């Protein structure tokens, strides 16, 4: 019995890492830009299609992942600079709608260029690994390892580099940062690039579980929003913990009550929003003027 739980937790961590990475991208943009980015998932979907195309050209898989991450960063930067920057004065709901429109643009593009039929997408690693009682797919293990690496790198960036500290400053007090001469727009560009690069990576890592089609990232995005809310919306650490927690809880719930698998996290999110609006690690921030 105990072994079953260990396996459930291990696999839940892998799923949770996927949620966490996506939630991290959402939270990074949310706390610095004050924008709920609805296109996070579909950006990853579009980049995954690109990766699919590159793989059919017989490029090596790791190179494709690298190229996809670069493509994601470029896409994110471009969108920040040419789409988001000119409309920053719009209302927050207006900005949400713009990212919503963007998600539709991505969806249509993917369906138009690649046709909307589900396609098979092979994982990078196919075998499984065993640690004592735990057996885990190699791809799942890769997800956990990669996300640990990314979490660590991101934390080093946020706490040890000027641009990262600047991003934290903007998240806390946009006006204060701007008045000090912190290059807020350069930092916005950086944040959007990171977020979209993350979304591309998540897409490639998770797509072998489903099939490649224009909607495959939507459920991941829904879960990532839940994870972000659980973690507190304005805490990157919260997003990661929220994601991992959600992944593990979901897996255990699905084992005992299979019919609750999907709805559990959604109902949890409403409860958290109502009774613990700051989430596990979030804090109240003053709104910008």
């Amino acid at each position: 019995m105990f072994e079953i739980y260990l396996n459930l937790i291990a696999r839940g961590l892998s799923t949770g890492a996927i949620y966490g990475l996506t939630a991290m991208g959402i939270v990074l943009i949310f706390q610095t830009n004050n924008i709920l980015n609805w296109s996070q998932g579909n950006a990853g979907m579009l980049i995954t299609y690109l990766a699919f195309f590159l793989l059919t050209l017989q490029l090596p898989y790791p190179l494709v992942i690298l190229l996809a991450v670069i493509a994601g960063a470029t896409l994110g930067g471009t969108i920040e600079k040419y789409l988001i920057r000119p409309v920053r004065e719009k209302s927050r709901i207006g900005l949400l709608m713009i990212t919503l429109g963007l998600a539709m643009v991505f969806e249509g593009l993917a369906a138009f260029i690649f046709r909307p039929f589900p396609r098979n997408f092979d994982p990078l690693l196919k075998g499984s690994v065993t640690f004592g009682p735990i057996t885990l797919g190699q791809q799942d293990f890769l997800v956990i390892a990669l996300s640990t690496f990314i979490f660590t790198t991101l934390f080093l960036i946020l706490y040890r580099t000027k641009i990262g500290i600047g991003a934290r400053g903007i998240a806390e007090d946009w006006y204060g940062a701007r008045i000090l001469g912190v290059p807020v727009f350069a930092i916005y560009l950086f944040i959007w690039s990171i977020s979209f690069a993350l979304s591309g990576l998540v897409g490639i890592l998770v797509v072998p579980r489903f099939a490649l089609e224009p909607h495959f990232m939507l459920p991941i995005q829904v879960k990532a929003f839940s994870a972000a809310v659980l973690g507190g919306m304005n805490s990157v650490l919260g997003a990661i913990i929220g994601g991992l927690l959600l992944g593990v809880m979901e897996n255990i719930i699905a084992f005992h009550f299979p019919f609750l698998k999907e709805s559990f996290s959604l109902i949890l999110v409403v409860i958290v929003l109502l009774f613990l609006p700051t989430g596990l690690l979030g804090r109240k921030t003053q709104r910008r003027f």
Partner: protein
Amino acid sequence: MLKIEGLVSGYGHLEILHSINLSVEKGEIVSVLGSNGAGKSTLLRTISGILKPWKGTITFEGRLLNNLDPIQIVKHGVVHVPEGRHIFPGLTVKENLLLAGYKLRNIELSERYNFVYTMFPVLKEREKQLGGTLSGGEQQMLALARGIMPKPSLLLLDEPSLGLAPKLVTLIFKALKRFRDEGLTILLVEQNAKRALEISNRAYILATGYLALEGNSSDLIADQNVKRLYLGR
């Protein structure tokens, strides 16, 4: 050093400042006084580029600042310490200072840390503490320290004494005097007109967006009208 001519500015469609002329010479402390809503903060925000001037010119050391971004204005040596301090509560004191010196190179940066810490030794002790855990007076010191961090030649101060106990106010004003001795020029916006006049060389008085009065601080202190209207009793 700073020359403002015919400046008109405001928020959205609301005109707050109507044709302001003002100048600051090198090494001076110049106060801008006036009641709430007179447009003092708007003036500073316009100089530092947060608001765009509608009309008129702002020149600093012969350079037009009108259409520059706040980042460039800081680079030119004009630094704005905003009302309400706006320190980053979740960042350490040192990180707060780092963001103020964002454009500096690493060698300059450590030199500036030392300078700031000699000015405000208490900040050195609190270096690793989060900004939000400092006391009100310490937070104001941090705000001032951030102001001098990028080696400005002109400091725009908005209500540095706001919400502080009289003893701390004295401390802050002492710091301003020391800033002047270090060769810094200061444009000071204050509610506490008496203290501001005591420390400044010249002063301007704003009323509902117009320049009501200007002169040497010593003359203004003696002026009966000013006394009645702005100094209380």
